[in-house]
């Protein structure tokens, strides 16, 4: 059963739409309707994010196809992604 969604194909995180337990397989609905699977290495509360791609420390965390912050440490697919591993980063967007 689908239990997570990805908003944009460029995203490095998915949103859990049910509470998900460590060790279980998240079944993610992509925007084009296809499915992607990621095994969770943390518990993920409902509506929270988890990584669907590897993010090295200092690289952008992408949701909605846009940067929402930078990885505060190396993040692996299946990690819960929240305040503990994401830093705020104000970008100059005037000419993006």
């Amino acid at each position, binding site marked *: 059963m689908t239990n997570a969604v990805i908003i944009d194909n460029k995203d490095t995180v998915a949103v859990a739409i049910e509470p998900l337990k460590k060790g279980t397989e998240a079944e993610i609905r992509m925007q084009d309707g296809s499915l992607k699977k990621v095994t969770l290495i943390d518990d993920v509360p409902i*509506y929270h994010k988890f990584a669907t791609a590897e993010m090295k420390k200092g690289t952008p965390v992408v949701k*909605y196809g*846009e940067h929402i912050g930078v990885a505060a440490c190396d993040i692996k697919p299946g990690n819960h992604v929240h*305040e503990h591993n994401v830093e705020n980063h*104000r970008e100059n967007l005037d000419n993006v």
Partner: protein
Amino acid sequence: MKFYGYKRPDGRVGIRNHVLILPASVCASDTTRIVANNVEGAVTFNNQLGCSQVASDQEFTMDVMAGYAANPNVYATVVISLGCENCQMDLVVDAIKKRTNKPLAQFIIQENGGTIKTVERATRAAKDFVQDASLLQKEEFPISELVVGTECGGSDPTSGLASNVLIGEMSDRVVDLGGTSILSETTELIGGEHILARRAKTSEVKARIFEIVHRYEKALQLVGEEVRDGNPSPGNKAGGLTTLEEKSLGCIHKAGHREISAVYDYAKEVTGKEGLVIMDTPGNDPSSVAGMVAGGAQIIVFSTGRGTPTGNPISPVIKITGNKITYGNMSDNIDIDASPLIYGTKTLGQMGDELMKEVQEVASGKVTKAESLGYTEMAIARVCNFV
């Protein structure tokens, strides 16, 4: 698509028929409460400001007061002032008259012999206005007469997945029908301003979008503060929002997909029939909603993730959540459950039809949950401390 509303002498169309008892300052707020309690059909609010403000702060307060009186949901206004405040009665009355020619009465507490004599006179004026208002018959009007304010509060990740997406769909439909939709909350444009700027109708509008975002950030930095210190809020974070950028990218879905035709400063009068516009308001919900209502919004469509009972004294507030748990917990407060969009059990087209029907019904008089429970909380945006 049509609704039944009230034609005002200034040409605008209201969807409620209130008599507003307007406190010119904090020192008149208890008096307006007593008067409004005396008269069925009268509304008021607790004005915490109106005195001891710097000029830019006083301008916010004056614009909200004048805009509330001019809002087409108001039939007539009774202004009550103490007498010595900075927002002097003649200033308030002039500001209202610049925006509308609707009926107006005024009472100054210090000149009317104190509370009891002022209350007696103001109550009689309010009672007469309510009786006059009751003679007005509703007429049919097109949706293009509506100015819809959009707002999100107590956001969580479901806001960007469902409820704000649904509001965006409604915004597009209102714009396509010739009406006006307002995107607000400048703090929650931060990180998404480039996306909105690409949709600006002109280069001036594009420059204004960047201007209001940078101006807001800079205003907080001038007093040594950072917008991120309280935003996202603890509830936003508990719900799963990590950064302000993430919150903003969900927030701006409320603006749908149409081009942005204008950017208004806080509580300034919105022209109407001009498609999608932005107003520079705080992320704080009651003061953002107040700015749009002062701009002339007859109706507010409000999304929430964590849940809120909020309303407004002048304009009905329709509340939507995309969080199925919140809808289950707070269905007494939330008008529409948008969670089927997340779980794929309804399409955006179907839910758009449902929300447009709700807007049409509320515009024609259907009481929202916030109205039925008597919610009228509000606030006015501020620049700095009292002087």
